[in-house]
């Protein structure tokens, strides 16, 4: 009798529906550059378990070049990419099949940067001077638009690539369009220089999201649910970062041991107010920027915003 | 007059089997305007001897004297002709012949006339503008001979100058070598392994042994030159020399 009972118990046990956790869905996300404090919420979302709870296993990759991430996402080689709003609009206008799905940094980080003590108080003081820019095809156009709207006349544009610090320090250029207000400014200060800057959105350039999450159109259609969950977790990551900045930063340092701590600590302080407060896109803002892009010559054809914006 | 007295040269080595005594108390004397020929098997040290004479190597002991004056080597005193024609491939034949004068400082009207005359004398007329690669081996050696004659130096060293040529060409060039002595009064020292060539050209034949290179026999010849195999005594002389050259016992 005992034997039968034992066997029965065993059989019952075996027949019970085993509560197995559903296999996590994988997402590859290519960053816009090497990991830096702009990406803290992404690491928070991963390492605080928000993504795991949503059943997502995420892998962060670094590109070899800043336009790589977006193109690879469009081609389906990575699931998501961290991109820039202006660049995304250019891509969409050129017919590259991408859509914007989430927000990371909701204001421009690029600035028109110069050094203190050179007698520059307002933008028009840069008339007749040498102004550098970091990315041909993008920053030189922004510079031109900025100059038109702020009365900078007769300036000489110089492509400085990414040699921002030497160019300013040596005085080869008087200002540079492109350095980030949360990053290069800290770099310059650490090198003993005194940077000042004009914020683009406060000088006539329409406000835009510096960093957004981008997906290929096909990828979005195929995996809409997962991607939506991802951006939700990103929103949670941003919120948690704003609520617990010190812990968030330590978490980031643990995830990215090669980060230059001192510098990034300060950079983080300047980045904190820039993180996106919502995953919902500012449709009006995008329309304004798109019109500006067309008018300033950044794009030649209209960018179809309906297709492009797939936020919450 | 070229006098070599008691030249010795040894190549040392940690490996006893590689140690080589090339020359040991080697002496010879070539009178002014004379034609001496060294005959010996390959590898007996003839080239090492010439290396010492031209200054590419130095003897361990011994003396070299030219016209009674002791000299370390014959640099600047002798002209040199080798098995390889050593013509500069990028210069046409005429320029190759003028080379010694150019190197010395400059080419004069006389130099050009002299060179032209040599071209005629040596059967090269018409080929002045040709590059060495466009003419035959025999012509190249004739050109080398012309250059040798344009070099400063009353002494001429010939290191197997005809060995690279075919038998027919070799015969025709032999007579030209005699010009060095007969028309230009040079003192000639020649190395060869061709016994018949030695008999045809030499006033004095030095029959050499090997390791170290020593003089087995000196044969003085005085009949008119060039001598041919058809002449009386030629074959007997050849056999005599070949006999002298035969390795005596231990070989290298």
């Amino acid at each position, binding site marked *: 009798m005992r034997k039968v009972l034992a066997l029965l118990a065993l059989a019952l046990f075996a027949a019970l529906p085993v509560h197995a956790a559903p296999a996590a869905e994988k997402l590859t996300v290519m960053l816009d550059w090497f990991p830096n404090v702009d990406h803290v919420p992404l690491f928070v979302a991963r390492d605080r378990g928000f993504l795991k709870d949503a059943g997502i296993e995420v892998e962060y990759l670094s590109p070899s070049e800043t*336009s790589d991430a977006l193109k690879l996402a469009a081609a389906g080689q990575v699931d998501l990419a961290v991109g820039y709003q202006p660049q995304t609009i250019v891509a969409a206008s050129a017919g590259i099949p991408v859509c914007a799905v989430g927000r990371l940094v909701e204001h421009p980080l690029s600035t028109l940067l110069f050094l203190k003590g050179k007698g520059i108080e307002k933008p028009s003081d840069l008339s007749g001077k040498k102004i550098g820019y970091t990315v041909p095809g993008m920053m030189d156009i922004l510079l031109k638009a900025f100059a038109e709207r702020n009365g900078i006349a007769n300036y000489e544009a110089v492509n400085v*690539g990414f*040699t921002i610090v030497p160019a300013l320090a040596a005085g080869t250029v008087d200002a540079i369009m492109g350095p980030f207000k949360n990053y290069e400014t800290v770099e310059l200060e650490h090198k003993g220089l005194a940077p000042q800057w004009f914020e683009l959105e406060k000088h006539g350039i329409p406000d835009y999201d510096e960093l957004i999450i981008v997906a290929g159109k096909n990828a979005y259609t195929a995996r809409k649910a997962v991607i939506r969950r991802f951006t939700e977790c990103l929103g949670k990551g941003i919120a948690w970062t704003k609520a617990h900045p010190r812990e968030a930063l330590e978490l980031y340092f643990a995830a990215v041991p090669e980060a230059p701590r001192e510098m990034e600590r300060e950079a983080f302080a300047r980045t904190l107010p820039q993180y996106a407060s919502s995953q919902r896109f500012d449709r009006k803002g995008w329309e304004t920027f798109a019109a500006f892009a067309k008018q300033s010559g950044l794009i030649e054809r209209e960018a179809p915003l309906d297709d492009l914006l797939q936020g919450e | 007059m070229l006098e070599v007295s008691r030249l010795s040269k040894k190549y040392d080595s940690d490996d006893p089997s590689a140690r080589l005594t090339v020359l040991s108390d080697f002496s010879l004397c070539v009178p002014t305007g004379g034609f001496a020929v060294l005959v010996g098997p390959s590898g007996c040290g003839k080239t090492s001897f010439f290396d010492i004479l031209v200054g590419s190597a130095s003897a361990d002991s011994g003396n070299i004297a030219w016209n009674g004056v002791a000299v370390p080597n014959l640099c600047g005193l002798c002209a040199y002709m080798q098995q390889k024609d050593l013509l500069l491939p990028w210069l046409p034949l005429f320029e190759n012949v003028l080379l010694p004068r150019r190197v010395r400082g400059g080419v004069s009207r006389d130099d050009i006339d002299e060179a032209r005359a040599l071209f005629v004398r040596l059967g090269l007329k018409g080929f002045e503008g040709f590059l060495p690669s466009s003419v035959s081996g025999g012509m190249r050696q004739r050109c080398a001979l012309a250059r040798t004659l344009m070099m400063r130096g009353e002494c001429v060293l010939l290191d197997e100058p005809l060995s690279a040529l075919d038998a027919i060409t070799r015969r025709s060039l032999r007579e030209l070598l005699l010009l060095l002595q007969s028309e230009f009064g040079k003192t000639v020292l020649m190395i060869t392994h061709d016994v018949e060539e030695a008999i045809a050209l030499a006033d004095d034949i030095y029959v050499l042994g090997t390791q170290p290179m020593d003089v087995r026999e000196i044969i003085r010849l005085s009949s008119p030159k060039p001598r041919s195999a058809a002449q009386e005594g030629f074959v007997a002389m050849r056999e005599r020399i070949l006999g002298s050259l035969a390795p005596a016992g231990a070989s290298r």
Partner: protein
Amino acid sequence: MIRRYGPSLFMILLLCLSWETAVRTLDVPWYILPPPSQALRTAILRSPLLLSHSFVTGGEILLGIALALALAVPLAVAMFFSPVLDRAFAPFLVASQAIPVFALAPLLIVWFGYGIGSKVVMAAIVIFFPITVNLLQGFRSCPQELRTLFRLMEASPWTMLRRLYWPFALPYFFSGLRVGVSVATIGAVIGEWVGSQKGLGYLMIQANARMSVDLVFAAILWLSVMGLALWTLVGRIEKRIVRWKN
């Protein structure tokens, strides 16, 4: 004419066909790798733009070649005649080739500015090594017997350099030069990537930022043609000067 250019034209056609086929069958997006037909079309349609930038890059390359020659020839001569200098410079020679030029580019900008200078120096660095090494090899390959001949003619070192070593080394020099000019394009373009106003390298970055990937490849096409033209030109010059076989 067909016999001379036939085989290479055939290979080029074959390559283009495989590329075109691969892109179409593998469905490679145009913004990652455009098919050659598209790149070629852009290369032709936007010739005026590409031409004006080519002049700039071409100028940098030619000046770079001149600079490299001005440095390489004396250095090779010095290293040949002086064993001490040879030992001293040999490691730098090797290093100049081993260092990734991309790492040097920002330094050159700091030293030579954003103008044409840094690009010329960059191109020169890339060409310098093959020229020097080949020339040196040419000098060293001169047979001992010829050197002895000149010594017997009591030639001075300068005479030997002028009449023996230099002519002898010319074929070697030209092979080094041919290699050098074909990689000079790399040096100039990389120099332009890190701060320039004009040139095919600059155009490539600008086109890339504007997502005009076909223009990027059109620029690459023009660069290849430029490299090819330089290679052929040097070959022609060599044929004219070196009429002998060593």
